[in-house]
C-alpha cells in the first residue's frame, strides 16, 4: 500500500491511499500542541464524529460528497472516496463569467439542499468544494453541525461570501448567483435568509 501525503491543511492531513482496492483519502486530524489535551481530544473526536455523520446525511439529500469507508473517532481518522477533480478555489477566477455564474448557481443549489434538512457545513469556502464530472462535491464538514436556526444558515452562507470577497475579490459579486441558486431550491423563506446575511454583515466591526 502506497501512502502519499496529498495535502496538509491547518487541521488535518490528507493521505492518498488504497482501501479494498479502491483509491481513498485518509483524513487524519492532527494533534495540536498549542492547545491543552482536554481541548485537543475533544475537538478532534467531536469533529471527526460530526463530520462522518454530516457527510452521510448530506448524501441522503442528494448533495455530492465522498463515500465514507471507515471512521475512527478516537484517533480522528476518516477513510473516504478520493475525489479526482479540481478544487474550486484553483479555477474559480479563471473561467468565463458564464461558466462562473452556472457554477455559483450549482453551489447555491447544493447549499440549499443541505440547509433544507438543517445540515450546516460550517466552512463553505472554495477550498472545501471540488469539481468532478460536472458536479460540485462538498468536502470537509469538520466544522459542521445540525442546526435548525436561521442564524446558522445565515452564518454558513456568510462564510462563503467572505471567502469570495477575500480570496476571489475580483469576482465577489458572483455571490448573488450563489443566492440565486439557493433561492431556487430552498424550502424556507429566502427573504429571511437574505435579511439574516445582511444582519451578520452589519455585525462585523465598524460596518
Amino acid at each position, binding site marked *: 500500500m502506497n501512502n502519499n501525503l496529498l495535502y496538509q491543511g491547518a487541521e488535518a492531513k490528507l493521505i492518498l491511499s488504497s482501501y479494498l482496492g479502491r483509491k481513498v483519502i485518509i483524513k487524519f486530524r492532527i494533534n495540536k500542541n498549542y492547545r491543552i489535551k482536554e481541548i485537543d481530544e475533544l475537538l478532534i473526536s467531536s469533529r471527526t464524529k460530526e463530520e462522518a455523520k454530516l457527510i452521510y446525511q448530506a448524501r441522503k439529500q442528494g448533495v455530492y460528497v465522498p463515500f465514507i469507508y471507515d471512521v475512527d473517532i478516537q484517533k480522528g481518522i476518516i477513510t473516504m472516496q478520493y475525489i479526482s477533480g479540481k478544487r474550486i478555489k484553483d479555477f474559480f477566477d479563471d473561467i468565463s463569467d458564464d461558466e462562473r455564474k452556472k457554477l455559483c448557481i450549482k453551489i447555491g443549489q447544493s447549499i440549499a439542499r443541505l440547509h433544507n434538512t438543517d445540515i450546516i457545513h460550517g*466552512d463553505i469556502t472554495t477550498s472545501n468544494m471540488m469539481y468532478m464530472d460536472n458536479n460540485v462535491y462538498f468536502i470537509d464538514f469538520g466544522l459542521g453541525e445540525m442546526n435548525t436556526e436561521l442564524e446558522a444558515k445565515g452564518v454558513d452562507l456568510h462564510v462563503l461570501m*467572505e471567502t469570495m470577497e*477575500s480570496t476571489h475579490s475580483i469576482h465577489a459579486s458572483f455571490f448573488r448567483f450563489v443566492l440565486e441558486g439557493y433561492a431556487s431550491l430552498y424550502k424556507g423563506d429566502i427573504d429571511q435568509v437574505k435579511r439574516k446575511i445582511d444582519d451578520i454583515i452589519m455585525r462585523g466591526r465598524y460596518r
Partner: protein
Amino acid sequence: MDEMISLGIEGTAHTIGVGLVKNTKHHCDVLSNEMKTFRPEKGGIHPRKAANHHAQHIASLIEKAITTADITKDKIDLVSFSKGPGLGPCLRTAATAARALSLSLNKPIIGVNHCVAHIEIGRGTIPDCTDPVLLYTSGANTQVIAFANRKYRVFGETLDIGIGNCLDKFGRSIDIPFPSGPHIEQYALKGKNYLSLPYSVKGMDIAFSGLLTAAQQYYQNNNAIEDICYSIQETTFAALTEVTERAMAQLGKDEVLLGGGVAANQRLRNMVDTMAKERDARFFVPTKYLCVDNGAMIAWLGLIMYQSGMRMTLADTTIDQRFRTDMVDVIWRE
C-alpha cells in the same frame, strides 16, 4: 535630504499616545513613544471621560515626545493621527490636536487606519517580518488580517465582542479592575482544572459571548476563579490560534505577527509561537509598547503613506469611527 521625521498621535480608545519615528532605509526608527492610558475607576470606557483625559494630557505628551526624541519642533516633517476606527470623542480629540500642530508647524497632515498601523509597525520594526498574517487582539478588535490583492483584508474576525472586551466583561463580573487581562493571566497560572466552555469557531470567524456567559455561570456556581480564568484563556486563545492558522494555511503565508493589547499575554504568545513552529512558520511580536495602542505606529504608517505619494488636505482629516481595515488602498506595497 535628511530622513523624514513623522509625529503620530494615537487616540482611538483609552490610550492617548504621541510617537516620533523616522524611516532609515525602510526600517522604522522609533525616536520616542509616549503615552497615557485612561483607567476608569468602575465599569468600561466612558467615551467623553476618556476624551477629557486625552485633552488634558495631549499637549504635555507632544512636548515630552519631542524632548525624548531629542529634536526641535522644526525637525518634524509630518503629522499623522489615528483617523479611526474608535470612539468618536477620543478620535476627535486626537485629530484636533494633530490639525492644530500641523497648522502651527506648517507641515503636512495625514490620517491613518489604526488597525493597519498595528500591522505596519511590525513590518517596520522587525527586519524579517515582511508578509505576515496579523492576529490583532485588543479590547474592541479581534481580527485576522493579511495582505491580498492590494488591501489588508480581514480573513476572520469576531462576530460579537472583541477578546479584550470578553476578558474585561468577565473581570467586571468578578470585581477585578480594568484592564482585566493581566489579572486573569495571573489567576490562570494557578488554575489546574479545565472547565468545559463553548468553543465557537465558524470558518475563520470566532465568537465569545456564549463563552462569557458560561464562564460567569461557573463563577456563580462557586467554581475556583483560578480554574475559570485558566479555562477562559485556554479556550479563547486556542480558538484564536486556530483561526490564525487556518488563514495562514489558506493563504500559504509563513509568517505570523501579533498586535494589540492582548498580545502582551504570555500564554497567547506561547500558543501562537507553538502553532508557528509546528508549521515551519516564523512568529513575530513587536516590543510591548509598539504592540499596545501607541503614537509611534501611527507616525510610521503616516510616514510610509506620505512617502508613497499619499496626501491629505485639512478637509480630508475628518475622523471615521467605523474605518474598516479593508477600506485602505495599500499603495505602498506591491
